């Protein structure tokens, strides 16, 4: 395609040092995303999805690989240029309360985004904040209210308004609905979708809720212990899940059966996620995989393209 992708990640890795041991949080992940598209990152806790989200915005420094946003390599930007670049890319947090300054009114929290970059006069900023509040479904009356006086859903709307304040092109949403009530989750999802259409935003949507990811995403990346196990378009992935892990993940989606005939046994993935400090040999998923062979125990599978834009790392498809 001739259009420059919004974000291109090339083989990024991140290790943490935890009490003298190495934790491989993210290993050689590559993807690209166009404006207006959504990439869903799915995985259990500890799979490195939040770390990957932060690497994409250089909130964490990658150990290897590069991230280009709008054609610029983030790692090559000076601290000042990076701060300027942050206008284009924003982050929505899992816990909205923790991400807001408890000593700042929510209006100030949003206008501070503009203030930091020296945009507009005080009155212009106030107008913009009112406009943003209305857009995300908050009453402008609560501009002078402190975060703790709002409900979780309202706090998350403030978080979204703040992320939108600088008119970004890319927003990383780190489990933006996990901390909310189910009824509120739907509202926030709808809001995110509307905003995407309206402003042609690119989303990297991190979630462990597959249903939401299916609904929102154009592409889905399934992570397991910091490695990509499957990466495909959302339709493809949910219709033809290939990796055994993806299959059990999809089977474990809870849904209300429409009839008695629709009832089925729940299938749980046996075992627990191994510690990322001591990942298993070979394929990281083999201890829990029904189809594991000796080959899986010894050799790590590579990520292979099994169809157009459908990559799987599994020996079954070698």
């Amino acid at each position, binding site marked *: 395609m001739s259009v420059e992708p919004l974000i291109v990640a090339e083989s990024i890795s991140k290790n943490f040092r935890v009490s003298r041991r190495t934790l491989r949080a993210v290993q050689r992940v590559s993807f690209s995303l166009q404006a207006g598209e959504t990439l869903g990152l799915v995985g259990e806790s500890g799979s490195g999805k939040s770390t990957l989200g932060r690497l994409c915005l250089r909130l964490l420094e990658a150990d290897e690989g590069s991230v280009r946003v709008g054609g610029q390599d983030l790692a090559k930007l000076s601290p000042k240029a990076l701060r300027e670049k942050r206008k284009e890319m924003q982050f929505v947090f899992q816990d909205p309360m923790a991400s*807001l300054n408890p000593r700042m009114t929510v209006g100030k929290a949003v206008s501070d985004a503009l203030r930091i970059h020296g945009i507009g006069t005080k009155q212009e900023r106030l107008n913009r904040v009112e406009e943003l509040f209305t857009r995300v479904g908050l009453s402008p009356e609560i501009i002078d209210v402190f975060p703790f006086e709002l409900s979780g859903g309202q706090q998350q709307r403030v978080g979204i308004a703040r992320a939108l304040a600088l008119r970004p092109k890319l927003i990383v949403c780190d489990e933006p609905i996990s901390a909310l009530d189910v009824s509120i989750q739907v509202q926030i999802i709808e809001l995110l979708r509307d905003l995407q259409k309206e402003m042609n935003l690119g989303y990297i949507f991190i979630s462990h809720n597959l249903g939401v990811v299916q609904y929102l995403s154009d592409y889905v990346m399934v992570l397991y212990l910091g490695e990509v196990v499957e990466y495909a378009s959302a339709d493809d992935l949910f219709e033809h899940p290939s990796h055994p892990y993806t299959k059990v993940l999809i089977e474990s989606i809870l849904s209300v059966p429409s009839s008695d005939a629709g009832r089925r046994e729940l299938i749980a993935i046996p075992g627990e996620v191994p510690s990322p400090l001591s990942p298993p040999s070979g394929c990281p998923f083999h201890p829990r995989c029904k189809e594991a062979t000796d080959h899986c125990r010894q050799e790590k599978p590579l990520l292979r393209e099994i169809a157009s834009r459908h990559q799987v790392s599994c020996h079954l498809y070698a």
Partner: protein
Amino acid sequence: MAVVMTNVAATKRKKRSQWGLAFRRYRRNKLAVFGLIWVALFLLIGVIGPYIAPYNYQTANFLAANSPPSLAHIFGTDNLGHDMFSEIIWSVQNALEIAFGATLVSFLIGIVLGMWAGLRGGLADLIIMRLVDSMFAIPTYFLDLILVVSFGRGMGPILLAIGITGWASYARLIRSQVLSMRNSDMVEAARSLGASQTQIAWRYVLPNVMNSMVVALAFGIPGDLTVMAGLSVVGMGLRPPLPSFGNMLAQSGVNVLGYPWLMYFPAIVFAITLLSFLFVADGLQEALNPKG
């Protein structure tokens, strides 16, 4: 429509400050309210004391020396004939200047070094914290004595001596608070907006450590008052005839059986003052940190 509009106008922009809420919590603590009244009185006397004191602190009436409380000298007089009531009033001013001055000196050193250590980390953190450790290792009281002996016994030197020995606990407190915040979502959110280190320090970190700082200050003032009195006990406080609580108490000890009022009045006033500051500090702690 009109009805709706007025309703909106009535509720619009209701300013609710956290200080207002904190004050309401503070009011519930009766001891803290009493403490605040006493402290306010103490401050007031500190300012207007010299104008309302019936006698100058240097006025010595030898004919009335060691006289018990009477109408002319409601708190009695000491062995040189100083009016004790006036002495106490003048002492308040000296006590305030030193206590506030010294606490401010320690606080400023503490806040700068603490924020620096917490936000910078690395070598700066290491050096500042070892400095803090060494401050804690040396008995402050003796360091104060050494400093007063080498600087002199004036108001300024004592203030500085108490001030520069007391910063370590502030620095440690601020550093620990900054550290707990440095990797928080809030700071990361500010970073992701593109805020610089300075903007994060001033607009995000500092306002959130301020509560603990106010409480620490309120606890620090009575501490410095005690140190100051302690210096007087060994004869290293303010040089007489400048009156101070420490001097009065130190001198009253020898005559406590014969002229007990020399000890009672200054001791009671000083004790209530210390308690009041502690009550205020305690009340502030409850009011500002409702979560515990």
